[in-house]
């Protein structure tokens, strides 16, 4: 083997082969890492329509046969948008299996119901990571409204494989 070829082999081993070996180490180590629970996808909300109708800004939600919510997740943060009924988008945070989001009625939603845009609906729910399809259960409350009774709700994720790893 010529000197040039030998040097090439050494340089190649140090700069290419060694890092690739390191990559395998990283991949092995990474398997032990835990990422936030998956809540990404379309969820079908189920709640008592009478209780929903009693909430300020809640009658639109109650009048819809079912409300679908799309959650777009990025780690612990997510955005939540109502697919039917009143259109609204909000953001929330995931802490462990607890999901918290605040939905501020849009101007169109508020004017339709005559409820004002200052009624913040807070969703506080717990995700069941073992259920298939994935489900969540929690409460929908209205901020600054002591007389408003919290509404219990459940949701089932549609068209997902319940947090099954993609690999």
């Amino acid at each position: 083997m010529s000197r040039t070829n030998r040097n090439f082999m050494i340089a190649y081993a140090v700069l290419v082969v060694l890092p690739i070996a390191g990559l395998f180490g990283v991949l092995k180590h990474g398997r032990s890492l835990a990422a936030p629970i998956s809540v990404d996808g379309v969820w079908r909300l189920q709640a008592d329509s009478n209780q929903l109708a009693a909430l300020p800004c809640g009658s639109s939600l109650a009048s819809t046969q079912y409300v679908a919510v799309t959650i777009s997740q990025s780690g612990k943060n997510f955005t939540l948008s109502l697919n039917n009924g009143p259109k609204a988008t909000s953001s929330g945070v995931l802490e462990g299996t607890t999901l918290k989001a605040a939905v501020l009625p849009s101007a169109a939603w508020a004017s339709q119901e005559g409820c004002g845009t200052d009624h913040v609906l807070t969703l506080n729910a717990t995700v069941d990571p073992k259920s298939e399809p994935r489900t969540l259960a929690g409460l929908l409350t209205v901020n600054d409204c002591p007389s408003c009774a919290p509404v219990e709700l459940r949701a089932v994720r549609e068209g997902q494989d319940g947090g099954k790893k993609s690999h």
Partner: protein
Amino acid sequence: MPNLFTLVLQIAVILAVCRVVGTLFLKIHQPRVVGEMFAGIMLGPSLLGWIAPQISAYLFPPSSLGFLNALSQVGVVIFMFLVGLGINPKELKEQGHAAVLTSHVSITAPFVLASFLSIYLYPKLSDDSVAFTSFALFMGAAMSITAFPVLARILTERDMLQSRLGTVAIACAAVDDVTGWCILAYIVLLIRSAHIATPIWLTVGGLIAFALIMIYVVRRLLQRFETIYRERGAVSENVMALMLLLVLASALCTEWLGLHLLFGAFLMGAIMPKEPKFVRYVLDRFETITVTLLLPLFFAFTGLRTNIGLVKGQEMWIYCALIILVATTGKLGGSMLASWLAGMPIREAAGLGTLMNTRGLMELVILNIGLDIKVISPALFSMMVIMALFTTFMTSPVLELICPEKLIRAVPKQVPLPQLDLKADGSAA
């Protein structure tokens, strides 16, 4: 049925904005394509949707985006064919050991650094539906890609294509793209196999058989295109249509086998005859409509999926800065180190590193695939788009700063790189 008025209006607005922004970018010595990428972001929720939500909702209602996406994907399929067509493996062979080392380091360095960064980012920006292996490999592939077409455009505009730096950069970028797409194919297979009933060995076997047929059978048949061109000095419309049909058939095969349309289109381009005049002829026929009409639609569609608003708060911007830092250190630093060790003068090596750090359009293509298969989250997608824009935008000014044109053109490609001859202390001989 698509609302034709909305669709035509969308196309008209996208074309107008892309042309205007592209022209403005030309004035600041940036390739037009960089301006068009920015134009796409401007039309999305990051700017138009933020400052004029009503106009944005009227122009791009969610129900219409499927048609826009379909059109833009047709453009990307043809574009990937053109990228494959432009790649010539002989160019790398001519460069010898130094280019082989540089190209391979320019892949492994950002790839490994990205996988290290994934350890930090995975618990913060991903979720448990994505395996760490898929996440880390995708991040590696996305950071190690080089925008071969944008690179060629920059080199052409700076009249550097015939310089030593230009030829080494083109050869290395070609290797990077082929390798990057092979890795991405593996990741897509890994992820899609979890959701389809077909066993993975059947999918892999099918793909290997398909690739072998393409390389050893179809490739020989494709030589006929070049023969026709050589004999007649042109190719009839029927022959061009046949070529396009073959591209679509190849794309459909890889999609049907469980991979992605784009891999088939790229492979068809890669096995096409490489006679320079023939390649130029085919590029000229396809490029105009693809580059002026269809790619801007892709930029706009990418922009509509990019929401810089998701990168909010100090923490998220730190992640974004880390991504840019790691991508640049790995790609620019890795290529520079390897080419300098291989004997390239330090300024030229820095210039090569800067050129290899151009990610541009190819990065956007890969990121869209990543978002489609949900291996990256929307916030991470937005951060990676920012990284792609940043690294592509920085290429021209940094190159001018560290590697002035007159210096580069002074070293034509006929001047070979010194033979790889490392001294004991690791410095280049």
